[in-house]
């Protein structure tokens, strides 16, 4: 009854300039006109520049950036809520940018669903009617039955007849999530979906999302300004700054090899032990040397590996992904990876 993501989304050479004569300035921006110059000379705002990103199907791609970085603008290009000044958004052989209004409407109805930062529930509809909203628009007969199913899945059974105003923020966003899931779309767009929630409830919602994703395998684009959230959820992370893509990679890559000082500053406060996996820092086993007796899993996070090894009194371990030997790992290497290089240098 639900559709997993089947196609990658390709964002190609995307530019967005805000202002009445945006189209005239694209070439200048492509030739190197900066955001500040565009603003000073032409009074136009550069929203996004030279964005190229492949969003893999069936995975969670997180687009991260501070406010004003253009991340909310970017996600709105995927379902055509914002039209780019130049560039393409490709999905299954179609370009969202050049769709006619009717095509775009069908694309939004059938392929995408969206969760919003401020929930954006319909205040005059009950929880049930809100969750059924996307299905109502499509004139689906079994809307109510499906809506009930998803209300159960997000843990809101019993609240069907409440109005949004009567629910807490966390519960309202569960309604938002259920509304999006009930739409049964391959693409799920989540615009700072958990940013307005308390930290504990946010963790809770992240867990719900990960759990559902295990089974649903949707193509999820998740916007956040919170690096911890990005690292926890993202199979792939893209970092935006001032409308430009700074680095794209998985969590390990971004934490271990930040592309520049800006990102390095960003990842400084991250708890590396909870992000980095054993396989990332394993060194290939030397030929002929005897393997350590202790074994850890390749995808175990370093803090867990360190705890297990210390408990067992081992200083070396072999790293295995199932049956396959990945390499070996020792406590000094683990410690070194867990300590931020910048902090290690300054704290002598």
């Amino acid at each position, binding site marked *: 009854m639900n559709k997993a993501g089947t196609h990658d989304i390709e964002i190609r050479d995307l530019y967005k300039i805000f202002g009445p004569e945006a189209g005239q300035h694209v070439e200048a921006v492509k030739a190197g006109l900066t955001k500040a110059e565009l603003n000073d000379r032409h009074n136009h705002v550069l929203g996004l520049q030279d964005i190229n990103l492949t969003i893999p199907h069936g995975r969670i791609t997180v687009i991260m950036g501070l406010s004003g970085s253009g991340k909310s603008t970017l996600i709105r290009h995927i379902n055509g809520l914002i039209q780019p000044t130049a560039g393409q958004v490709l999905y299954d052989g179609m370009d969202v940018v050049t769709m006619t209004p009717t095509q775009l409407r069908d694309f*939004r109805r059938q392929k995408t669903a*969206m969760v*919003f930062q401020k929930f954006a529930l*319909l*205040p005059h509809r009950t929880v049930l009617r809100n969750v059924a909203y996307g299905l109502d628009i499509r004139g689906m007969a079994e809307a109510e039955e499906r809506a009930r199913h998803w209300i159960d899945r997000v843990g809101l059974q019993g609240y069907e007849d*409440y109005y949004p105003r009567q629910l807490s923020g966390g519960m309202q966003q569960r309604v938002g999530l259920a509304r999006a899931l009930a739409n049964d779309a391959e693409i799920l767009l989540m615009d700072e979906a958990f940013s307005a929630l308390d930290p504990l409830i946010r963790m809770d919602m992240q867990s719900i999302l990960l759990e559902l994703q295990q089974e649903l395998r949707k193509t999820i684009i998740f916007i956040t300004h919170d690096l911890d959230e990005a690292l926890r959820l993202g199979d792939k992370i893209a970092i935006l700054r001032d409308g430009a893509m700074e680095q794209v990679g998985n969590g390990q890559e971004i934490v271990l090899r930040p592309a520049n000082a800006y990102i390095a500053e960003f990842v400084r406060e991250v708890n590396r032990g909870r992000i980095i996996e054993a396989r990332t820092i394993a060194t290939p086993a030397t030929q002929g040397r005897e393997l350590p007796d202790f074994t850890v899993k390749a995808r175990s996070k370093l803090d867990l590996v360190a705890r297990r090894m210390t408990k067992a009194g081992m200083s070396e371990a072999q790293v295995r992904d199932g049956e396959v030997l990945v390499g070996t790992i020792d406590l000094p290497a683990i410690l070194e990876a867990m300590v931020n290089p910048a902090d290690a240098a300054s704290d002598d």
Partner: protein
Amino acid sequence: MDLIRFPEMSRGNLRAMRQTVDGAFRDFTRAWGDTLEAIFAPLQSLLTFIENLLIRSPWIAVLAVLAAGIWLVSRSWKIALGSVLALLVVGYFGMWEDTMRTIAMVAVCTLIAVVLGIPVGILMAQSNRMNAMVTPILDMMQTMPSFVYLIPVVMIFGLGKVPGLIAVVIYAIPPVIRLTNLGIRQVAPDVLEAAEAFGSSSWQKLRDVQLPLALPTIMAGINQTIMMSLAMVVVASMIGVRGLGQPVLQAINQQYFTMGVMNGLAIVAIAIIMDRTTQAYGKRLQKHTEAGK
């Protein structure tokens, strides 16, 4: 050059201009008067039908139906009971028939205002250009002394119910239009964006999101329209609309103090009944905004 005297148009030209416009309008009236009257004939029949229904039915039945209607709309025993008492007093003082005529007229005027006003308000909310065009017209309708537009209306339709209806609707329709426009424009942009993101068509957006969320504001507009059409009953009586306005007019002309006050108070009574009823309805529409269950 004479700086004290304003450089005005010559008298002859001014008179010629007036005569030309008046003449053209008279010709228009002769040519189209019958057609226009025919167009508005259904309204006259509707008003006459409601009037007769209210006046020729047994008073107790009319009172019961009105009370039931008021309760259905307001869901308040207090308002329903108060209305019944007020109508009993009004009837006892000999104003039952005139009150029924006035209620009939206000009902028809409000109906016309709603049917015409809400679509215009919706159009204004959809387009800033439309908004810029209609707003000054509404300003004019509300500030132009009603006697001025009574002149052409009476020239076309003569004295009677239809010119009265038109005059009242012109005066009373602006609030419905303005508040429909305002109500739709006030719908939160994030909710609209959500509707769009789920693939709503413009019509679905209007029907499922904008109108329901604007409804309390639109109700406030309808309430204002009712109040304003009641305020016009005396003016309308000058061109032959019967009802509580006529005795008031008569009282002014002949200085019958008590008669004026009694009929005036009857108008106030109807106004309060209608105001409380529609307001209670408006409040019921906003029930979903209350927290707690």
